[in-house]
């Protein structure tokens, strides 16, 4: 059969962010694909070296619009370790709370994108409507729906009022019910299963070889989670299950993410009940003593790693960021091989791409 090469992107209605693909197809079947990144590369790592530690907080929050809070979490805990700062427990609790709310809203956003790419507009609308509950809570806590600017070096800049708590708990329960509904759709809706099962398969060997992290790895049966494996903030004080599945396809990823969102809500409840009294932050000096630090955190898409080197000035010598999406992008040619062209959109949505994160 004749081969044809179809360019997809960098601008394409299916893609939420710029990314370029060259798909080689034979009839309706994809035989090869070539990936091109860098359309939203902003040189953030280099820019960090020109700015003070405090200014970088502002910059790093903008690496990603969806998981902005976890970026500053990884950065702040790294700088705090270099400074030897002891962050007050209340600050760590609130930091963790925001991390988990962010995971819930990110997973719901992802479910919406996946459903839309499948042509399942109802679930897209419902998922994005219910995601607003998480965003509203975050707005109440921080003053912003996205880019919350909650983390500062030495803690968090916001505090929660005792009076706010009952309303937050109530809405978290409401959100859990909504996610249970989505879980039912993922598990039982025949069309959804038909579109998602046996599509975008990754074996555990492929996941390990490509160093894939996060829900994509867990949906292939690789049990990794930085929250449990390298506990940061107050993850060692809460109980949660790491959700895994052995199917390795887009359906398994949907299931893992929906169950994970419910686990996140469980964590939120524990954090709100156990919220200790006290200050939320300590003052941090401007200059950071010389040293190096490797800071890991579990972003909604998996392990996020920051390497920070200080030369003893008020500006970092080097900040290296590796975002989880970069590890999943490398698997795309493998996932796209032999799929039907109609399933390309599902495969792309299935890995939860965040191109702004990957390009930095």
């Amino acid at each position, binding site marked *: 059969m004749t081969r044809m090469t179809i360019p997809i992107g960098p601008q394409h209605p299916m893609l939420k962010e710029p990314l370029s693909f060259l798909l080689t197809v034979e009839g309706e079947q994809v035989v090869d694909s070539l990936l091109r990144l860098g359309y939203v590369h902003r040189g953030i790592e280099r820019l960090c070296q020109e700015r003070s530690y405090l200014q970088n907080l502002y910059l790093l929050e903008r690496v990603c619009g969806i998981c902005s809070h976890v970026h500053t979490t990884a950065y702040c805990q790294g700088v705090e370790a270099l400074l030897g700062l002891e962050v007050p427990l209340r600050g760590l609790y609130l930091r963790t709370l925001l991390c988990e709310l962010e995971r819930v809203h990110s997973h719901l956003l992802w479910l919406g994108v996946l459903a839309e790419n499948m042509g399942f507009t109802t679930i897209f609308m419902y998922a994005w409507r219910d995601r607003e509950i998480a965003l509203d809570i975050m707005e109440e806590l921080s003053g912003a729906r996205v880019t919350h600017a909650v983390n500062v070096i030495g803690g968090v800049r916001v505090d929660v009022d005792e009076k706010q708590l009952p309303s937050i708990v109530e809405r978290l329960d409401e959100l859990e019910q909504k996610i249970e509904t989505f879980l039912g759709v993922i598990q039982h809706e025949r069309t959804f299963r038909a579109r998602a099962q046996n599509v975008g398969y990754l074996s555990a060997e492929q996941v390990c*070889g490509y160093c894939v992290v996060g829900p994509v790895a867990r949906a292939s049966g690789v049990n990794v989670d930085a929250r449990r494996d390298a506990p940061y903030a107050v993850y060692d004080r809460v109980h949660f299950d790491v959700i895994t599945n052995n199917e390795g396809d887009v359906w398994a990823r949907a299931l893992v993410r929906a169950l994970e969102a419910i686990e996140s809500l469980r964590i939120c409840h524990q954090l709100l009940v156990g919220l200790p009294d006290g200050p939320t932050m300590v003052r941090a000096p401007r200059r950071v003593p010389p040293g190096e630090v490797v800071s890991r955190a579990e972003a909604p898409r998996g392990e996020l790693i920051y390497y920070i080197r200080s030369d003893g000035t008020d500006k970092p010598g080097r900040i290296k960021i590796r975002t989880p999406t970069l590890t999943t992008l490398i698997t795309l040619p493998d996932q796209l091989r032999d799929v039907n062209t109609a399933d390309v959109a599902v495969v792309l949505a299935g890995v939860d791409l965040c191109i702004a994160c990957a390009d930095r």
Partner: protein
Amino acid sequence: MKLDLILEALREVFPSHTIETRRVPIDETIVTLPPECIRPAAQVLLKQFGVYHLSTITGQDTGGEIQLLYHFWHGQGLTLCTSLSRGDARIGTLTGLIPGAAFYEREVSEMLHVTFEGHPDPRKLLLPDDWDGEAPLRKGFSVCLPREGQRAELGEEGSQ
């Protein structure tokens, strides 16, 4: 402890080299090795200890040399560190052992002009194809930030 066993194994494989280790936060051990030992060391980690997860490769220009840090994870952080000369920075690729290293190496390669010998796909990863050749993360690369005055000008334009 697994870490002690790994370090012992590395000392056995490279008896003629002194292997320096240093602890850094957060729970990370950095092992310094000569460039030619990185691939064999990664092989030891992978084959003997099942350490398959390479979190990333950090490249940095320390002024005197190009330093590469291979951040592995085995329930604890383990970083292999090596230094290359600034004039001729080259090292063997890890892609044969760890396919996931491909993107990390491409990024280090374009940002610091390090050649990864044997890399199957040494195209640019993030920079444009027609990038003029300066390495953005090398010392001496100038970043054009707007000056205070320029910012004011831009602001005025924006308000008109």
